[in-house]
């Protein structure tokens, strides 16, 4: 019997999420044009809300399911095995993670609305500290905040789109450099919006704000507590992205090994060629190691509630070594098939390559680990 993935966060959540993503993949395979596909994705997002996934990380007291980080990772792992092109992490996980440590008026009501899906926040952020800002090339957001008026100006590009978002959950600095967090009703503003598709087939947005007036009471948090919470959310984002990456790697390996075991050339299966066997053994060895690293770090974070920058950066750095290597090997050993859109492994590969760039690529995390090494 050929290799089958053992899930890191194996549970009913993981299994049902995997089934959901597989069904979504089958349904979308018959859709030809981009509009149909986007409508289908929006429909699946509604179903995810109905399944309670948006409530997973929200406390029971605020109308949520009070799920653990590991529960949410189980959902992520399940959906990632079929490269579900929807923003589970940035749409249903990170907003709750960002808001959790903050205190502000009507917080419970907001969380409750996020849990039942009546508020669907579109997370947009401008990295706050100078080091994180290195990653932003297309981010020029600027908020002028005075007692009399608030004005948002500038552009943000490459935002992972949340289907039918009701609000922007915007985090950026004001004119004094103070971090601010805004919950902005979408129907109250009119940015110029352009829609794009990311390399992993997820929807993305570019938004341009031209002297957009904001109401002062839309600002829900600011100051050092927000700065700390944002830094924490960024790290969680990197960790959750790594969970998805490893799930994609496992599924891609599984599919590729099966393909090589079935496909015949020169009268024998491709899996009988030692060079191909060794390629796969090589990347399997890397996969096994990164899987153990992700599993251990996630459980550690779940137990302690804290993420050490250096540990996380070493994980992302290693992921940047092994993720693309696995993706490229999968394409190579599939031959021409590896270049086709319809191949399951190709979609997994694209998601894998995207995760390598999310929340800091290898170079970013190497530099961050370097700085902490020096500080030690």
């Amino acid at each position, binding site marked *: *019997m*050929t*290799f089958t993935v053992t899930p890191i966060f194996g549970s009913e959540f993981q299994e049902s999420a995997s089934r959901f993503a597989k069904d979504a993949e089958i349904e979308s395979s018959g859709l030809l044009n981009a509009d149909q596909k986007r409508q289908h994705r929006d429909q699946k997002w509604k179903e995810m809300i109905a399944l309670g996934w948006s409530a997973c990380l929200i406390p029971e007291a605020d109308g949520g399911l009070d799920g653990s980080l590991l529960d949410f990772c189980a959902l992520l792992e399940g959906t990632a095995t079929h490269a579900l092109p929807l923003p589970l992490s940035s749409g249903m996980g990170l907003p709750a993670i960002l808001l959790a440590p903050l205190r502000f008026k009507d917080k419970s009501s907001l969380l409750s609305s996020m849990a039942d899906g009546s508020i669907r926040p579109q997370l947009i952020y401008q990295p706050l500290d100078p080091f994180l800002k290195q990653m932003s090339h297309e981010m020029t957001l600027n908020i002028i905040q005075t007692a009399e008026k608030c004005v948002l100006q500038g552009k943000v590009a490459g935002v992972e789109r949340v289907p039918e978002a009701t609000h922007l959950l915007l985090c950026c600095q004001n004119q004094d450099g103070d971090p601010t967090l805004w919950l902005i009703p979408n129907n109250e503003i009119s940015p110029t919006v352009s829609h794009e598709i990311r390399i992993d087939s997820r929807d993305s947005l570019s938004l341009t704000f031209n002297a957009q007036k904001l109401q002062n009471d839309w600002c829900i948090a600011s100051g050092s507590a927000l700065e700390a919470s944002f830094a924490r959310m960024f790290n969680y984002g990197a960790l959750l992205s790594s969970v998805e990456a490893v799930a994609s790697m496992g599924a891609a*390996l599984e599919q590729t*090994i099966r393909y*090589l*075991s079935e496909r015949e050339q020169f009268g024998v299966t491709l*899996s009988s060629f*030692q060079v191909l*066997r*060794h390629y*796969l*053994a*090589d990347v*399997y*060895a*890397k996969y*096994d*190691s*990164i899987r*153990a*690293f992700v*599993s*251990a*770090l996630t459980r550690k974070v779940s137990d302690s509630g804290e993420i050490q920058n250096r*540990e996380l950066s*070493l*994980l992302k*750095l*290693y992921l940047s*070594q092994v993720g693309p290597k696995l993706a490229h090997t999968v394409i190579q050993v599939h031959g021409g098939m590896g270049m086709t859109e319809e191949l399951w492994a190709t979609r997994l590969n694209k998601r894998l390559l995207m995760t390598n760039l999310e929340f800091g690529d290898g170079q970013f995390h*190497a530099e961050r*680990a*370097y700085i902490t*090494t020096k500080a030690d």
Partner: protein
Amino acid sequence: MNTDVKAAIDYDAFRAEIHAFVSTQCPPDIKQIMALNRKLSREPWSRWQKILFARGWGAPNWPVEYGGTGWNPRQQAIFGEVLAENDCPPQYHHGLRHIGPVLIEFGSESQKARYLPPILDGSEWWCQGYSEPNAGSDLASLKTHARIEGDVFIVNGQKTWTSHAQESDLMYTLVRTSDETRKQEGISLLIIPVRSTGITIRPIRTIDGWHHVNEVFLDNVEVPLSDCIGEIGDGWKYGKFLLARERLNSANTAPLFQYLKRTRTLINERFSKPEQLQRKQALEFRLLNAEAELRAIQELGLEAIDAVMNKKPIRLQPSVLKLNSAGLFQAITEIGMEIMGPEYAASMPADEQSVFDGNAQAALWLQNYFYSRVRTIYGGSNEVQKNMIAREIFGH
């Protein structure tokens, strides 16, 4: 993790106890050998074994009834880690980890009484007579032959790559006692004193300049029948048992972390001038990449130990650990070589015995660079490990 076991043993206290002893009781000259990555020879190594034996820690992997500690796999792993973290040598493997467990499992009572105590106290040293000129990875093709004459075997043949033969007392040796069956059958495991009449040891000079390995020629060597371990013809089974006991060796990543730390220190020592900053940073980033992989290997090792503790099957982890850690060690030594640079590369010691008047520390980095190449060859080469992984993931 098995919560019953965890509840019964305080691993932090256990770690602290090991640390308290080894950090103070390991002689400074022995620690210095480890800290400088020198080659460790029998005298300091057996001296260290005697100290551990006196403390009751002579055999972490043996059962209590044979003088071992009876520690579980997690405790054994912690012990290995703490030794490395304190620049203390690991215990000599051929006796304690290789032939000792085979004797305990398959040896006769008289063999156990004769051979186990000197392994424990470090007074007797073993080497492994496995590989032959035409039987390396394909070990079952071995040709060294033993025929029975009266109450002795008469052994003829040649072993090669026999590490430590020059400083050993005994060699556990796979020999062919029958040619009439499939090649894995008809092999027996004999105990042969290295100084027996008919044995000639010839050193093999390796690329690191050190003397590790030898050719061992056996010319009508007489071995009592009573020194055959287990049943005649079942040697392959015992050899496999031995290898299975070694499967989690690479789970101990502490020596690699130590080597990484030394390499980082070396960068700081060698590149302190402002004009060297770019080169320094480039090397430091390469080392960070190595550290990232090492952290991943460390977690895989811990996962494998947990699996053993919980009696779950471990199939691929040993090969993956061996494959990844061997390559990583080489990568770190490559960084070390570049730190030393061309001027030191021009000062390689002629051989182990030569009086070297250059920079001895630099020479050790060069020698370790060359020595590291064997990591992907011995104990099942990279190619063998990949074959094993492929067989498992492809199901054939």
